C-alpha cells in the first residue's frame, strides 16, 4: 500500500472513517441533530474528495479495486444520493425512533459497500462490497423494530438476500473453478482461450445472475421489491432504489466489459428475456396498486428493465446511456421518495394513494415536485427521464434492437397509466380547510424542501438542457 494507494482510496477511506467517527460521536452522546449535521458534513467531504482524486485516474489497486472515471461517476451518484437521503432522514426519524443515531453509521457503511461495488474488479471485492451493503441494509430496513412491517420486510430481505448471496457465491466458485482466478481481467484472459463459453462458466454465471438479479430486482427475482420498499423506512427505500442498485449495475457493467460478455449470444438472450419480462411485468404490477411506495417499487422493476435495454447492445453508447439514465433515475427517485418522506407523519408513512388526494391544493410545491418526479419517471419531455429514455431508445435502435425498444415503448404506456393515476389523485378532491399543523422542525423541513426543489430543478435542467450532463458522462467513461 503506497501513499498513492491511500490517496486513490480517499473516498472509501473517508466513508469508512466517518462511520467509525459517527460511532464515536454516538458514544459521547451527542444529540441527533448534531450527529445528523456532522454526518452531512462528512458526506460532503467524501463527495468533494471525489473531485480531488481525479488527477490520478485511472488508478488500479491490484487486485481488488480499480478507480477510474466511470467508478468515480458512479460513486459520485451513490454518495450524492446518500447525501440526499441523509438530509431527508432527519425529520423522518426524529419523531419516530428513540435512537436514530446508529442509522447514520449504517448509512455510511451501506454507502461504502455500494462504492466498493462500483470500484471492484475482483470477485472478492464484489462479494464484500455487496455484503457490506446488504448487511447494512438488513438493519436499515428493519430499523423501526417496533413496527410489524419493518420487521417483516427485514426478515424477508434477510432470508432472500442471504439466499441469493449463496447463489452468487456458488456461481463465483464455479467460475473460479473453471478459470482459476477471481479477477475480472484474468477471467477474460482465461476465457479468451476458449472458443465458446465453457459450461461450468456458464453455470456459474447463471447462478451469479440470480444473485445480481435479486439485487437489481429484475423479473423473476423481483418479488421482494414491493414488500421491502413498502416496509422499509422511506429514506431507506430511497437508498435501496438508488444507491444499492446503482452499485450493482456498475459492477455488472464492469464485469461484462472486462470479459466482453456481449458477444455471447446465450448470455445476451438471457438478458433480453429478463429485460422484456421486467419491463412488462413491472409496469403491469403497478397498474392498479394502491400503495404509492409499492407503485414506485414496481416501477423500479420496470426501470431496471429499461436500463437492461440500454445495457444489452454494449459499446460506448450503451455505457453513456446507462450513466445518463442512472443519473436521471437517481435524481428522480430521490425526489419522489423525498416527497413521501417529507409528507410522512409520526404515525404512518404517507403511502396510500388516497392520502395524496388534494395534495395539489394543500401543498402545491410538494405536489408539483412529486408530479415532476413522476413525469420524469414516465419519461415525459421537459424532464430528465425523457432524455434518459431517449438515450436508451437511441442506443437500442442504433444497434438494431427494434423489438426491445418496441416493447419498452409499449410497456411504458402501461407505466403512464399509474403515474398519471397518482397525479390525478393529487389534484382530485377538495382542499383541506382545516388549519395546518405547525411543523415540528421548520429548519429541517425547509432544508428538505430546498433540497427537493434543487432536485426538481435538476430534473428539469437535465430535461431541457442535457448537454452538460452528457459531456460530463462522456468525460467519465470506462477507458
Amino acid at each position, binding site marked *: *500500500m503506497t501513499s498513492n494507494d491511500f490517496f486513490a*482510496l480517499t473516498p472509501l477511506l473517508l466513508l*469508512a472513517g466517518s*462511520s*467509525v467517527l459517527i*460511532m464515536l460521536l454516538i458514544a459521547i452522546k451527542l444529540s441527533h441533530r448534531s450527529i445528523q449535521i456532522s454526518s452531512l458534513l462528512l458526506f460532503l467531504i467524501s463527495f468533494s474528495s471525489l473531485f480531488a482524486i481525479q488527477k490520478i485516474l485511472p488508478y488500479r*489497486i*491490484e*487486485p*481488488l*479495486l480499480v478507480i477510474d472515471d466511470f467508478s468515480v461517476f458512479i460513486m459520485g451518484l451513490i454518495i450524492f444520493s446518500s447525501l440526499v437521503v441523509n438530509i431527508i432522514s432527519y425529520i423522518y426519524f426524529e419523531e419516530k425512533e*428513540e*435512537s436514530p443515531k*446508529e442509522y447514520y*453509521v*449504517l448509512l455510511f*457503511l*451501506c454507502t*461504502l*459497500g455500494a462504492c*466498493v461495488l462500483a470500484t471492484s474488479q475482483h470477485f*472478492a*471485492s464484489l462479494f*464484500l*462490497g455487496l*455484503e*457490506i451493503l446488504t*448487511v*447494512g441494509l*438488513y*438493519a*436499515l430496513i*428493519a*430499523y423501526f*423494530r*417496533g413496527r410489524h412491517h419493518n420487521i417483516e420486510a*427485514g426478515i424477508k430481505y434477510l432470508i432472500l438476500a442471504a439466499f441469493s448471496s449463496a447463489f452468487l457465491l456458488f456461481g463465483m466458485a*464455479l467460475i473460479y*473453478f*473453471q478459470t*482459476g482466478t477471481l479477477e475480472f481481467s484474468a477471467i477474460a484472459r482465461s476465457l479468451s482461450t476458449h472458443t465458446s463459453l*465453457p*459450461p*461450468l462458466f*456458464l*453455470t456459474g454465471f447463471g447462478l451469479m445472475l440470480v444473485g445480481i438479479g435479486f439485487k437489481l430486482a429484475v423479473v423473476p427475482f423481483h418479488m421482494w421489491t414491493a414488500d421491502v420498499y413498502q416496509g422499509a423506512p422511506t429514506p431507506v427505500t430511497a437508498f435501496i432504489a438508488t444507491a444499492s442498485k446503482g452499485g450493482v449495475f456498475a459492477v455488472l457493467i464492469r464485469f461484462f466489459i472486462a470479459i466482453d460478455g456481449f458477444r455471447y449470444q446465450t448470455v445476451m438472450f438471457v438478458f433480453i428475456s429478463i429485460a422484456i419480462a421486467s419491463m412488462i411485468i413491472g409496469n403491469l404490477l403497478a397498474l392498479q396498486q394502491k400503495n404509492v411506495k409499492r407503485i414506485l417499487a414496481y416501477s423500479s422493476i420496470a426501470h431496471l428493465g429499461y436500463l437492461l435495454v440500454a445495457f444489452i447492445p454494449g459499446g460506448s453508447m450503451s455505457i453513456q446511456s446507462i450513466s445518463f439514465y442512472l443519473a436521471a433515475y437517481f435524481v428522480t427517485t430521490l425526489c419522489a421518495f423525498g416527497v413521501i418522506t417529507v409528507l410522512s407523519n409520526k404515525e404512518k408513512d404517507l403511502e396510500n394513494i388516497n392520502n395524496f388526494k388534494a395534495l395539489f391544493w394543500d401543498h402545491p410545491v410538494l405536489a408539483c415536485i412529486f408530479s415532476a418526479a413522476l413525469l420524469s419517471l414516465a419519461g415525459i419531455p421537459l424532464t430528465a427521464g425523457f432524455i434518459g429514455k431517449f438515450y436508451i431508445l437511441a442506443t437500442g435502435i442504433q444497434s438494431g434492437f427494434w423489438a426491445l425498444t418496441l416493447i419498452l415503448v409499449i410497456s411504458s404506456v402501461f407505466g403512464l397509466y399509474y403515474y398519471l393515476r397518482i397525479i390525478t389523485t393529487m389534484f382530485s378532491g377538495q382542499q383541506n380547510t382545516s388549519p395546518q399543523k405547525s411543523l415540528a422542525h421548520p429548519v429541517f423541513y425547509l432544508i428538505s424542501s430546498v433540497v427537493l426543489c434543487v432536485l426538481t430543478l435538476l430534473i428539469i435542467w437535465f430535461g431541457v438542457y442535457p448537454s452538460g450532463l452528457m459531456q460530463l458522462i462522456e468525460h467519465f467513461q470506462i477507458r
Partner: protein
Amino acid sequence: MVVTRHNPVHALLYLVISLLSLSVIFFLLGAPFAALLEIIIYAGAIMVLFIFVIMLLNLGKETAKQEKEWLKPKVWAGPTILSAILLAELLFLITLPNNTTSSQQTVDAKAVAISLFGPYLIGVELAAMLLMAGVVGAAHIGQHKKTVLHRFLKEEEPS
C-alpha cells in the same frame, strides 16, 4: 437431516455433524486452515449463537409439534420437485466434460495468511467493516426492551 428434523436443537446438532464432516473434506482437499476455521467459527461460534437464540426463545417441543404439522407432503412436494430439477440441471452442467488440468496440492495456513495480508488486505479491511455493520445492526435491532415495553403499554391502553 437438518432439513427434516422438527426439533431445532436436533437439527442444529445434525448441522454440526455436517460441518464437521465438511471440515474433514477441507482437510482432505489440502486446506487445513479452512478446516480449522470451519470447526472453530462455524461449529463453534455461529452454532452457539443459534443455540443461544433457541434457548432464549425457549423453542422446544411446541415448535417441534408445529413443524411436524407443517411438514406435509403437499407442502414440500412442489418445492422438492423444483429443487430436484435445479439439482439435475446443476449436475448436468457440472459434469459436462471440462478439460481443466487438476493440480491438487496443499495450501497451508501460511500461504493463506500471506495472500490475505498481501493483495487481499483491503478485503480484510472490508470484511472488518462488514462485521461492524453486522454488529451495529444486530445491536440496534436486538435492543428491544424499551420498544417492547412501549409496545405493550400501547397495546394495553386501548383494551
